[in-house]
């Protein structure tokens, strides 16, 4: 039985799944049923759908998604259970008795065919002008069931206006099949809850609060709904046309920075197994497309660690030594724009806990149109700065009005992994066969610490690698085998770790202006937490509000998306736990293959400080370019 406080979705959409017994070997732990005349034994409470999967029986589904609670609304997965008058939705039927199931009777096949016919009759959209063409569950179902004409007619006119208000997510409800995956994603997985079914009968549709445009509600732009929508009803706001135009304009100097997660997933768009990195093939492809320079966002991830790590040390010093009450601890990471907006809406009173350090994307933007432009004698006005991101919220982030610290729009376009793959295809390139090449300097060299930003726990691990060494003067390998800070790795929704600081070294030069010595941290225990998915963030924030254990933390990493950026709203579709785990593995493998794995050892970062920010991290100039502020938004939209 569900636990009421855990999920906010209506009970009709909650997992009414009988909990599987912990030890299935106990008496009554399993049940033997007949699946198409074959006896199979499964743990009590397994759904018919899962039992079929285990036994290689394919059942078509549409509303079911393994990340989400059960809906049982599309009815495509129906099967016959002997003795029952009606067909049963296999995704929603927990097996608790020795039933006999038939998955392909004439009645079942007819029902499925009818359901597909019905969905298509109401579906307004042409596959060739749809971004889900060839990767659409409705289209695949039509093919699987050999639909070759409209059995029940076909809608001829659009019924809804496309909502293009958001910088991140576009909603085209004419393509919606009302599977409610987006609703369940938004309310259960993300605890945001901006989408809901309204109306009854044939007037049912997915809507926002008071039918407002998405830009005007509490949407955090995470795009998780896009990743789980089976059709083209939800898509990201696509800047390809503008980027092509810039590339084709000889006056423009078009640069692209590439975040760590896209490279670990883009192969999927080219039919490759999840879990393979195409970093160096991608850099070549980007040059062939026509980008003038191809940079690595991991460089500014390293820079973020320098700034955010220093900020953390400063905060702790002020709070613990100087007893300055105005300084807020724990410090929250701020590199996930979905998380930032979530906090601005739902916990605006905690804005001062957010690190003022910009995200790597925005630090990059500020440097490109200042440092890089100066260094290379390019008029910043002619620079078009593109950010390849796994994320739909990054599109919103680069459009935040305050992100103009270079004197220009710091980042012009956020481009998702999916959209870049599309551009590569348009250029006639098959990515996996590209020759390898490196990133361009001066932002080409980056550490593994910057790379692992892509996985949940990565920012924390990168910060620990640096902060530990700065404080102890020793190698992080002395504390963590092979430099892998395993306590903050893995896919648990909330991770908590205590890291004792047993010894301290001399204060490194770069921090000398800020702290006199390390005596105050000696013997202290650094308490950290790592959180991904805003539903988990909510749990932690509520705990902090209640003065629970997380309020005692010093530093907390929050990522809006399940799995961290590698599960971002701009990543290849589909997504599921297995795919996300493989992408994470790709990232950690690449980190381990690098020699440079600590942000503060990145020579180019250190050179940047020397040449451009001589006063060091968190100095006046770095504050102007590399730090930002936030907006109290609140939950209630006027």
């Amino acid at each position, binding site marked *: 039985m569900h636990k009421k406080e855990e999920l906010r979705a209506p*009970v*009709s959409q909650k997992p009414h799944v009988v909990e599987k017994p912990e030890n299935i070997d106990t008496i009554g732990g399993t049940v033997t049923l007949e699946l198409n005349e074959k006896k199979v034994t499964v743990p009590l409470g397994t759904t018919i759908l899962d039992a079929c999967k285990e036994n290689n029986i394919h059942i078509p589904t549409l509303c079911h998604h393994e990340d989400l609670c*059960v809906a*049982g609304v599309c009815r495509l997965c129906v099967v016959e259970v002997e003795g029952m008058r009606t067909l049963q939705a296999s995704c929603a039927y927990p097996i608790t008795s020795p039933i006999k199931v038939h998955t392909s009777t004439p009645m079942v096949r*007819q029902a499925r065919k009818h359901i597909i016919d*019905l969905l298509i009759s109401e579906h307004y959209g042409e596959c060739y002008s749809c971004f889900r063409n060839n990767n659409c569950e409705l289209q695949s179902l039509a093919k699987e069931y050999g639909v070759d004409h409209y059995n029940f007619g076909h809608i001829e006119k659009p019924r809804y206006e496309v909502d293009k208000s958001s910088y991140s997510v576009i909603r085209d409800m004419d393509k919606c099949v009302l599977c409610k995956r987006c609703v369940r994603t938004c309310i259960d997985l993300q605890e945001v809850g901006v989408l809901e*079914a309204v109306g009854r009968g044939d007037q049912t549709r997915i809507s926002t609060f008071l039918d407002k445009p998405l830009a005007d509600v509490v949407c955090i732009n995470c795009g998780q709904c896009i990743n789980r929508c089976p059709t083209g009803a939800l898509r990201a706001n696509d800047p390809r046309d503008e980027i092509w135009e810039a590339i084709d304009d000889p006056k423009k100097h078009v640069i692209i920075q590439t975040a760590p997660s896209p490279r670990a997933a883009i192969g999927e768009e080219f039919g490759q197994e999840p879990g393979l990195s195409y970093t160096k093939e991608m850099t070549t492809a980007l040059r062939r497309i026509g980008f003038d320079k191809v940079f690595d966002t991991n460089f500014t991830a390293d820079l973020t660690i320098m700034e955010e790590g220093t900020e953390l040390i400063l905060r702790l010093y002020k709070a613990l030594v100087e007893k300055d009450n105005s300084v807020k601890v724990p410090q929250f990471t701020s590199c996930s724009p979905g998380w930032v907006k979530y906090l601005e809406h739902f916990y605006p009173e905690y804005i001062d806990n957010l690190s003022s350090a910009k995200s790597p994307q925005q630090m990059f933007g500020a440097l490109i149109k200042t440092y890089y432009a100066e260094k290379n004698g390019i008029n910043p006005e002619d620079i078009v700065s593109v950010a390849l991101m796994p994320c739909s919220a990054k599109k919103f982030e680069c459009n935040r009005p305050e992100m103009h610290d270079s004197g220009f729009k710091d980042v012009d376009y956020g481009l998702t992994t999916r959209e870049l793959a599309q551009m590569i295809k348009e250029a006639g390139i098959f990515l996996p066969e590209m020759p390898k090449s490196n990133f361009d300097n001066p932002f080409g060299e980056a550490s593994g610490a910057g790379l692992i930003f892509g996985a949940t726990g990565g920012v924390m691990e990168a910060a620990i690698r640096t902060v530990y060494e700065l404080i102890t003067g020793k190698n992080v390998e002395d504390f963590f085998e092979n430099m892998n800070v395993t306590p903050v790795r893995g896919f648990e929704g909330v991770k908590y770790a205590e890291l004792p600081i047993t010894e301290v070294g001399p204060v490194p030069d770069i921090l000398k202006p800020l702290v006199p010595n390390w005596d105050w941290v000696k013997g202290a225990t650094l308490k950290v937490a790592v959180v991904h998915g805003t539903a988990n963030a909510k749990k932690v924030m509520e705990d902090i509000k209640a003065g629970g254990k997380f309020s005692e933390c010093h530093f907390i990493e929050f990522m809006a998306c399940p799995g961290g950026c590698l599960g971002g709203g701009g990543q290849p579709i589909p997504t599921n736990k297995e795919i996300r785990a493989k992408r994470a593995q790709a990232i950690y493998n690449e980190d381990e293959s690098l020699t440079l794995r600590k942000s503060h050892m990145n020579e180019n970062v250190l050179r940047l400080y020397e040449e451009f920010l001589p006063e060091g991290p968190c100095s006046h100039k770095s504050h102007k370019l590399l730090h930002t502020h936030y907006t109290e938004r609140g939950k209630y939209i006027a």
Partner: protein
Amino acid sequence: MTTNKQKREGAVIFSEYERGSAIKKALSMGRDDILFELRESKLKGRGGAGFPTSTKWMLVAAAKAEEKYLICNADEGEPGTFKDRVLLLEYPELVFDAMVVGGYTLGAKHGVVYLRGEYEYMKKSLEDYLEAMRKDNLLGNNILGKEGFNFDISIFLGSGAYVCGEETALIESMEGQRGEARNKPPYPVNTGFMGMPTAVNNVETLAAVSHIVVKSGAWFKQHGTDKSTGSKLLSISGDCKKPGVYELPWGTKISELLELVGAENTKAVQVGGASGICLSRSEFDRTLAYEDAATGGSIMIFNENRDMLKVLKNFMEFFVEESCGQCTPCRIGNVKLLEGIEMIERGEYTFSYIKKLKDLGNTMKVASKCGLGQSSPNSFISILDNFSDEIFNNVNGGSHA
């Protein structure tokens, strides 16, 4: 609001009953004895599905949980039904006493009457009635001196959607959600209101329970047929001289009923409301019974002057409107059936398409998520089958236009 022109009192529900007597009797019996009497009576749910009441109560009684609930389903949304209203207005003791008996038998502390939104005007008088019961210790703590037996009843006003009468949608609506049917299993008897074991019973089912407790299961099953024991309250409407609420024993023939209510030149009888089936003259010797023509209470009579296609169109418009819209077969299927009717009206149809729609109807019956979509094609299929001459010949004559 229709006024009750007629009320025919039969031998079971409307038989003699003294307020509080079922409670008194029940408290002197063991719970098992009450369940035994119910099983003896072979009482089946009067809300439409016809599930054995004793089984439902046994399941809830046997469930182990901190809380249990008994809900009286007074949503009465089926077009053409008003018998639950008559019971609540004129015989509240039958319904409320049975709820107290239920609380005792199931081990529930809370009873809720889910009252149809349109019946709001009754709320005050029902609450006054409950208050009087409290005064007489028929509700509250240690009811009638039974140490530790605490039970109270509250009234929840429904939201006006037909589907909210479906028991799981009703529970959703009580929990403050959109009224949408849940996935089953699990059933409310083990995961109901607030996740707790819950018995949902129709008003009339409960009224029967009060009589059974006082007069025994054996007495009850003397009435009706072997498989359909007791009597049925029928809300009779349409083309007849004496519409109203009738109590008739199960097993009554349609033809007998027509005579009783003064129906003449009857062409069609819709048994079971919009979601029921439509019988033509050749079937008037069928009987009202779970095993034959089952009904939750609605009987609509149509005489020769009625246009059956229009009748059908009304039903289908109702379903298109009342579908909660969550599942595909019902949300879109009903629209397709309605469009089919409109095609026939315009004379723009092929028989092969009508056949396709009937097949679709059969899919809806088995693949829809709840009883609404599972029963909405009944009238479509039965009217097109039973009145095909009229409907399709008329088209040729162009009289629907």
